[in-house]
């Protein structure tokens, strides 16, 4: 009974799936899906190699500090970074006094309350504060940016396929829209107020090119020249740190744990072999089937010159 019912149910479900298959097939043949500009012109991020890559990866403090400088002087005008606190900057090699100074001199202040009147006010940031956001709220951010919302950058390299390479590619990917694209897809012309960037999912990004010229930011003595490419790399490295500040701990502990597990597993395996050797001997083929006896017999037959 179960099998007859099952048979019918199976026929129905498999049948409807197959019907769906053929209906779609016919549909696709009659009106093949049209290509879109995104499909043809969107490109995957360029390769970017950072010191934080790979299982031995660590942060290049110098580079991440440069990236922080770019964020502070360029990006932070529009992009918040709510998950990172000034105190976290210790990990980048800034001293306590430097962190205090950075917090104190931050362009935007922290919202607070006037202790005398209770009116909304602002105060200088302290190391315990998170980076203050440039806009009070989403509406203010959209109003100031042509109705586009500059996303929070704290987790950017974990929140996009391609991670740091994606950020780097976007920052260096601005160009004029190819004329063939517009010829082929007249509807896909970059609208007013947007900017063509093939690394962006729908090709047209609201953010104007943020890093426009070499030397836009002045690096301290002993750093590489601040070319657009270098600055894009540095800020990408910084965003790797903001998204995953514990990356170095993770790698260090990871290796220790793996080494421990490796030794433990090998020991466990030897112990297992040990324990089972006994069991195998106990059940092992006995009498003529015992490999030892068998070998003896083979030797004996060989000695005797009897053909196997």
């Amino acid at each position: 009974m179960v099998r007859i019912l099952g048979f019918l149910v199976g026929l129905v479900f498999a049948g409807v799936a197959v019907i769906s298959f053929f209906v779609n097939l016919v549909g696709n043949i009659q009106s093949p899906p049209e290509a879109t500009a995104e499909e043809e012109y969107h490109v995957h991020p360029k390769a970017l190699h950072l010191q934080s890559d790979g299982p031995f990866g660590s942060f290049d403090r110098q580079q991440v500090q440069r990236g922080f400088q770019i964020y502070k002087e360029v990006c932070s005008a529009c992009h918040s970074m709510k998950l990172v606190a000034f105190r976290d900057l210790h990990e980048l090699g800034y001293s306590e006094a430097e962190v205090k100074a950075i917090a104190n001199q931050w362009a935007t202040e922290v919202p607070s309350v006037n202790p005398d009147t209770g009116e909304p006010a602002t105060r200088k940031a302290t190391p315990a504060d998170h980076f203050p956001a440039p806009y009070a709220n989403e509406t203010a951010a959209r109003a100031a940016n042509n109705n586009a919302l500059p996303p929070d950058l704290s987790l950017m390299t974990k929140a996009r396929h391609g991670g740091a390479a994606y950020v780097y590619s976007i920052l260096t990917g601005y160009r004029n829209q190819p004329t063939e694209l517009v010829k082929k897809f007249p509807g896909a012309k970059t609208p007013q107020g947007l900017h063509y960037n093939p690394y962006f999912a729908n090709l047209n990004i609201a953010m104007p090119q943020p890093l426009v010229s070499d030397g836009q930011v002045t690096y301290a003595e002993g750093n590489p020249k601040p070319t657009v490419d270098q600055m894009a790399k540095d800020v990408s490295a910084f965003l790797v740190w903001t998204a995953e500040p514990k990356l170095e701990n993770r790698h260090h502990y990871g290796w220790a744990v793996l080494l421990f597990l490796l030794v433990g597993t090998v020991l466990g395996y030897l112990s297992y072999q040990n324990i089972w050797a006994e069991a195998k001997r106990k059940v092992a083929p006995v009498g003529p089937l015992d490999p030892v006896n068998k070998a003896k017999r083979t030797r004996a037959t060989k000695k005797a010159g009897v053909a196997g």
Partner: protein
Amino acid sequence: MSFAWAKPYEPKTGLGRWFDERLPLPRLVYGAIGGGYPVPRNLNYWWNFGVAAGIFLTVQIVTGIVLAMHYYASADGAFNSIEHIMRDVNAGWWLRYAHMNGASFFFIVVYVHIFRGLFYGSYKAPRELVWMLGLVIYLLMMATAFMGYVLPWGQMSYWGAQVITGFFSAFPVVGEPIRVWLLGGYAPDQAALTRFFSLHYLLPFVIAAVTVLHIWALHIPGSNNPTGVDVKTEKDTLPFHPFYTAKDGWFAGALLFAYCVLTFFAPNYLGHPDNYIPANPLATPAHIVPEWYFWPFYAILRSFTVDVIIPAKLWGVTAMFGSILLLFFLPWLDKSPVRSGSYRPVFKRFFGLLILDVLVLGYVGGAPITPLNIALGQLATAYYFAHFLIILPLVSKFETPLPLPSSISESVLHGEKAEAAPIGQTKPAN
């Protein structure tokens, strides 16, 4: 428990005897996972995944309890509380990644465990209840995992909650009220998040309880084995401890190694970047997919694109639920008296096809929607239902199985390496 030669528990100390007479807990443990549980001596490594599943359940419960000490189930604060765990809580990043990847490993291990049962006929009499309780655990796991994925309140969390509860709206009349009831609102929000957290904390303990039943039911007939032949004499078995504790122990080490590689060096590999974007009820991510362990079912859901008598949406949802429910009937669909797939040449071929089919479904479920992927998914879906409901019953009726060994020890005798293989199929080791 059920074998005459199972060693009874003998307390070694006076205190042990005193305790045993009052509360025979040590006796219970000894009989369940100690020297008092005789296990077929020819189990291969596929049998290690049951204990491994127990280990990962423990990992999940332990890390979960600890994470709950820092997480707050608030629509405004959930996302930030996870990042607080990742950044500020001592060893928080490890706890969170361990829980995240622990879920994936729990599913990996359970999937291997299920497919082992499918191949070696572990669902057949007298182990039907073991199989069905296992499926109950699996369903509970899916519910727990889904609700856990909602908790970070990222984009995928939010839209996952929206889509999964949307399944219910496929059912006519009662569907929409059920969906609204589940969410406690018209869209996922505070009410949904709080109840998901509550249930996400509760269900693992239910899973643990059903696991006890699963093991209890297993201990009545005892474990199946690669030959599928019943245990006949003491020679066929070994006590669980120390033999299988040693084997499970070192294998657990190896699995934990793989798990730690993922946790420490590619913790987000199995996740989706969009879940690092806070939930936004006004923007759906471009490419929304569930976690990888749901992909095959997601592919089945998406395969029904045509209204045939009832709407396509309802086909998709019933098929998706049906694809799991039909497994409950497996013991009665496959009536072949031979358990082990090793002795069933035709079954073996179709089993290979089934694995391939589920892999294809998995791929399609995680891939973007293109006409080719949809078509592939539709064929794979058709095969999935045909396999269990049409092919298996027919195969079990018409197939001629290979000769079985007369006992487990006989199968062991023809060579350690070929323990599981039928006689005459592989060359003896000696």
